[in-house]
């Protein structure tokens, strides 16, 4: 599940390629140095900051996870990316810095675990489409409801999952599909989803309706189509679906939730530049948060309302 990918950045990306092709003089690119040796990662950009690369983290036991680790985009701060606008319930009021919303809270918990104070977390806005561009990233990790898949992992590095997402179908309350009890009931429905989401894949693999699904740039467009009757239902991850029906479209209802069964349970992961060894630091922080129950607490606080949604077989 990813929110807020747009068409333009992709189109731009194609153009940017041309620029890259023309402009790239042989500058050392961190993406080529994927090995475990401690290196300057992206520090050639932020060379003014404290500890220069080299010896400190070179112990072969693991990467340097200190707050001034040379692996960081800007040592001393944790640079975190998400899309703009940032949607509820993952962020609240489109403001990732307030610590409210599931992903904002998770980020600050991870940061705390790694030793960063609240002030040392720096947010940057990165459209979903450019989060997986090749080349040096301008962030340490991207948190944007990005589902981990094997194919995607060929282009980027994922942390371990921090949330298992179920899919859900939203319909208008007066729709004939509102009373559906199984996925098969949607065989003739016109369904919509946001582009770049695994919800879109789920329509094809789990429901495979007779009509081609409609695809929208963001959930706002999908919501408008639902209100217009241009689609019978929209598919989104469960927390998003619940938020839409509870807050944004009161005349809609979550008909039911389902798991994407063809693979294993789908999980959201933190996205890093391909081969960035800092992922080990994030993984261990996440593992601690899971062990201590902190992660479950955050999930309960921000996403707990969704448990009583019926499951579609």
């Amino acid at each position: 599940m990813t929110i807020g990918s747009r068409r333009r950045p992709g189109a731009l990306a194609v153009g940017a390629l041309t620029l890259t092709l023309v402009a790239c003089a042989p500058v050392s690119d961190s993406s080529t140095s994927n090995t475990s040796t401690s290196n300057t990662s992206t520090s050639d950009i932020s060379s003014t900051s404290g500890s220069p690369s080299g010896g400190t983290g070179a112990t072969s036991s693991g990467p340097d996870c200190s707050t001034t680790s040379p692996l960081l985009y800007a040592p001393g701060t944790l640079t975190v990316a998400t899309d703009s606008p940032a949607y509820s319930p993952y962020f609240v009021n489109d403001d990732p810095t307030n610590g409210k919303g599931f992903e904002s809270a998770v980020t600050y918990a991870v940061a705390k675990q790694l030793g960063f104070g609240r002030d040392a977390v720096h947010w940057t806005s990165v459209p979903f489409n450019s989060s997986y561009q090749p080349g040096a990233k301008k962030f340490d990790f991207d948190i944007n409801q990005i589902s981990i898949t094997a194919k995607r992992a060929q282009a980027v590095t994922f942390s371990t999952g921090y949330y298992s997402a179920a899919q859900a179908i939203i319909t208008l309350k007066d729709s004939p599909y509102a009373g559906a009890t199984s996925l098969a009931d949607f065989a003739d429905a016109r369904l919509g989803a946001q582009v770049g989401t695994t919800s879109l894949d789920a329509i094809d693999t789990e429901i495979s309706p007779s009509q081609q699904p409609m695809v929208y740039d963001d959930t706002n467009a999908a919501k408008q189509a639902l209100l217009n009757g241009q689609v019978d239902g929209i598919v989104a991850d469960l927390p998003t679906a619940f938020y839409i029906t509870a807050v944004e479209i009161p005349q809609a209802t979550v008909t039911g939730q389902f798991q994407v069964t063809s693979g294993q349970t789908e999980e959201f992961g933190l996205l890093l530049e391909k081969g960035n060894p800092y992922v080990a630091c994030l993984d261990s922080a996440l593992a601690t948060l899971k062990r201590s129950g902190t992660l479950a607490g955050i999930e309960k606080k921000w996403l707990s309302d969704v448990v009583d949604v019926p499951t579609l077989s």
Partner: protein
Amino acid sequence: MTETSWTPSARQRERDTFRRRQSSRRTAVALGSTVLVLGLLAYVVLSSPGWPRVRDAYFDWSEAKSVLPLVLRGFEVNVRLFLAAEVTILIVALLVAFVRVLPFAGLAPLKVLAVVYTDVSRGTPTLLVVYLVGFGLPALRLQGVPSSLFWLAVTALTFSYGGYVAEVLRAGIISVHPSQWASGRSLGLSYTQTMRSVVLPQALRRVLPPLVNDFASLQKDTALVSVIGVVEALRQAQIRSARDFNFTPYVVAAVGFILLTIPFARLTDWLSLRMTRRDQGAA
């Protein structure tokens, strides 16, 4: 004097060989410099440290092959869209252009409307028009509004391009010399007859290249209608790209769009060439 006995003079032969040498030297220089520049460019790109990742992200052959059928199916939508829109645009644009040039006082309110329409349609970003028509019109829940996304998309494109094409046509009509009008009228043709048989044929011939130009631009803008849910070629590419975190599908779609516009570009070349020839032939 006899045809057989003539041979080029020594001077002439000298000139010929000189010209041949010049010509082959020019060819060699052009070829050499092209190869050199392209070779350098290729070298810089291929030897750059980021190239392997760029190659994997943008030029993944297996990804391209697997996405091609999807993108082609998307292009079917693009082609149907612009073929339909070209017809409706021409109709709307002709009407608007006529209203603006006809000298009938009774048409004043329509003329005002036509001016407002051209201003609004040319000033509004096409993307916005697509949103407004695709989501706004159905939201009104009026009778008779097309419910099919395809026709909503055609409506949006027609609105957006009608203004441009109307202005092109109007410019063509105005560019026909007033003496042509006068000749038509003095031959006893009515205003409408003069317009149809004397002015419009000349005007259309003149504005064909810019007209074709607008339609080439329209072909690319068919991709904009993806925002209201129509799955066309670029959207297909985006779906795949976001699923696999690979940009190759975009490159495939880009190549497709280029191939789609090339016939139009050649058509424009040929039309303007033919026009030049005819003008010169008539002179």
